[in-house]
């Protein structure tokens, strides 16, 4: 079996979620790497697109920000921010977009906080804020969330609801007037979490090799269904080669 790092495993796990023909909205770092890997492995006609407006960039080097000049090279179109977000709000193209996001906190319905810990007006910790995340989470039919599995991150109630997940469960996105859908997958350092089709609650889908469902639960403030949990197939040699050699040869994101 191939040797791999946790970061590599997480990236490949995300890449496997991307279907051919999808338009992948990604941020910097591991989410972009996952989109690049998917394009090289199983979704050649997927399109990488950044909230900054770059579509289908020729990524010869890994960008370190969505506004990195590397995303502007040999794109199909260099659009504006307004164009980028309209692509997701648009009824035709929006249907094909997969969003990949991260956050500081997540709750059982996949609602995300990337704004503050503590009181909004005098926070204990201030984070970057929404950026485009709230827009993506509002518009798109499918999204993937990267998280670290820690109790303070998988919380009963997010301190600030930055990006809408399934809100309070079945029917609540519709009641609020949102389009799109809540998240489909959460990829962490320990496991892959899904959302139940009926209850819209998070459940444990796959644990990583060597991790037990109980360990996952120990790192969450709320309980989730673990009855459906299987073990994730580790990355294949082919997947790893693509990731290492084609996507991040400088190891800028994968690290050393």
């Amino acid at each position, binding site marked *: 079996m191939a040797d791999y790092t946790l970061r590599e495993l997480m990236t490949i796990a995300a890449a496997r979620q991307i279907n051919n023909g999808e338009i992948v909205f990604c941020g910097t770092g591991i989410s972009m790497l996952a989109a690049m890997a998917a394009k090289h492995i199983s979704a050649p006609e997927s399109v990488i697109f950044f909230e900054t407006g770059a579509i289908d960039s020729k990524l010869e080097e890994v960008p370190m920000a969505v*506004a990195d000049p590397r995303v502007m090279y040999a794109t199909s179109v260099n659009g504006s921010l*307004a164009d980028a977000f309209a692509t997701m709000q648009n009824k035709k193209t929006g249907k094909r977009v997969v969003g990949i996001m991260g956050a500081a906190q997540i709750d059982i319905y996949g609602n995300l906080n990337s704004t503050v810990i503590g009181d909004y007006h005098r926070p204990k910790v201030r984070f970057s804020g929404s950026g485009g995340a709230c827009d993506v989470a509002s518009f798109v039919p499918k999204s993937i969330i990267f998280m670290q599995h820690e109790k303070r991150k998988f919380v009963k109630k997010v301190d600030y609801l930055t990006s809408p997940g399934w809100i309070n469960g079945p029917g609540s996105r519709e009641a609020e007037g949102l389009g799109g859908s809540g998240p489909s997958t959460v990829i962490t350092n320990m496991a892959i979490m899904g959302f139940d089709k009926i209850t819209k609650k998070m459940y444990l889908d796959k644990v990583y090799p060597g991790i037990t469902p109980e360990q996952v639960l120990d790192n969450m403030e709320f309980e989730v269904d673990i009855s459906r949990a299987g073990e994730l197939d580790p990355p294949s040699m082919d997947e790893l080669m693509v990731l290492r050699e084609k996507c991040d040869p400088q190891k800028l994101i994968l690290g050393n």
Partner: protein
Amino acid sequence: MNKGLEKVMDLSAAIGKFVENGCHMCIGGFTVNRNPMAAVYEIIRQRKENLHLYAHSNGQGVDELVGAGCVDKLEIAYGGNGKFASTCIRFKRAVQNGELLVEDYSNYQMTLRFQAGAMGLPYLPVRSSLGTDIVNKWGFSREIRNSDPKIPDDKLIVADNPFNKWADVEKIVLVPAINPDVTIIHVQKADSQGTVSIEGLPMADVEQAKAAQYLIVTCEQLLEPDEMKKQSDMNQIPHFCVDAVVHMPWGAYPTACYNCYDYDPVYLNNYGKFASDDQLYREYLDKFIHGTPHHEAFLELAGMDRLNAVKADPERGYAVNLDRR
């Protein structure tokens, strides 16, 4: 015929003339890219204060303005700087210390607010943020809003679709227009009358530019109008929107300017170290900003080797194989 030369001025004159204490302003660019840094540093040098800043994800420039104490209130979508700061460091401190009043929006919402301003509309509708704290939690109280005619009475408004579910929409969020007193952008090319050409991603610069009462453009290349007219399809901002044109090569450094130079990882990493300590940050300001009379001197202090290192590859538009650790 007047060639519009009266718009061409030096940076300190432009900042002195158009950026007043307490004014509402914004800068172009996005995180590590095309921030009008020369103008940002000049604002800090001129010790402007009580600024009301509007930002989508303007990154480095916003953090330096906040860090230097120029900003009172900030309406923002994203206070991060890519790989160099998952949350902008001085921004984070200022908020946590209660030194900065912040109101949060999403990137699309901020973009649409500028677009509404550019279009001469009071607001634009958007389908994002329903059910979130962006709707529920306001950074500026009713009291502040009512006391300041330059802040709308409502942060945003959730409304029913007046067209009876047309386009399958039931509810919509209305976000109020922004018309800044001043917008400052940095671009690759401008001409002496003010026509602007942005290469690579324009971000929200065009909307920010057209929403403003006064528009300052700093540019890598200052061309003659006849030259700019040879590339009409590449020009985005008409001259009649522009009030000051400043010829300022390296005007986005240490952020990137596509086709001209990359962001400088060395400067930005060093900045991160300075920014993480209040004493070091004061020294940084004293040395790099207040210690240099203008951007040319600042660049000299940053070092010619850095400028050479980040020069763009002419085909790719960025510095190939730049050490970016």
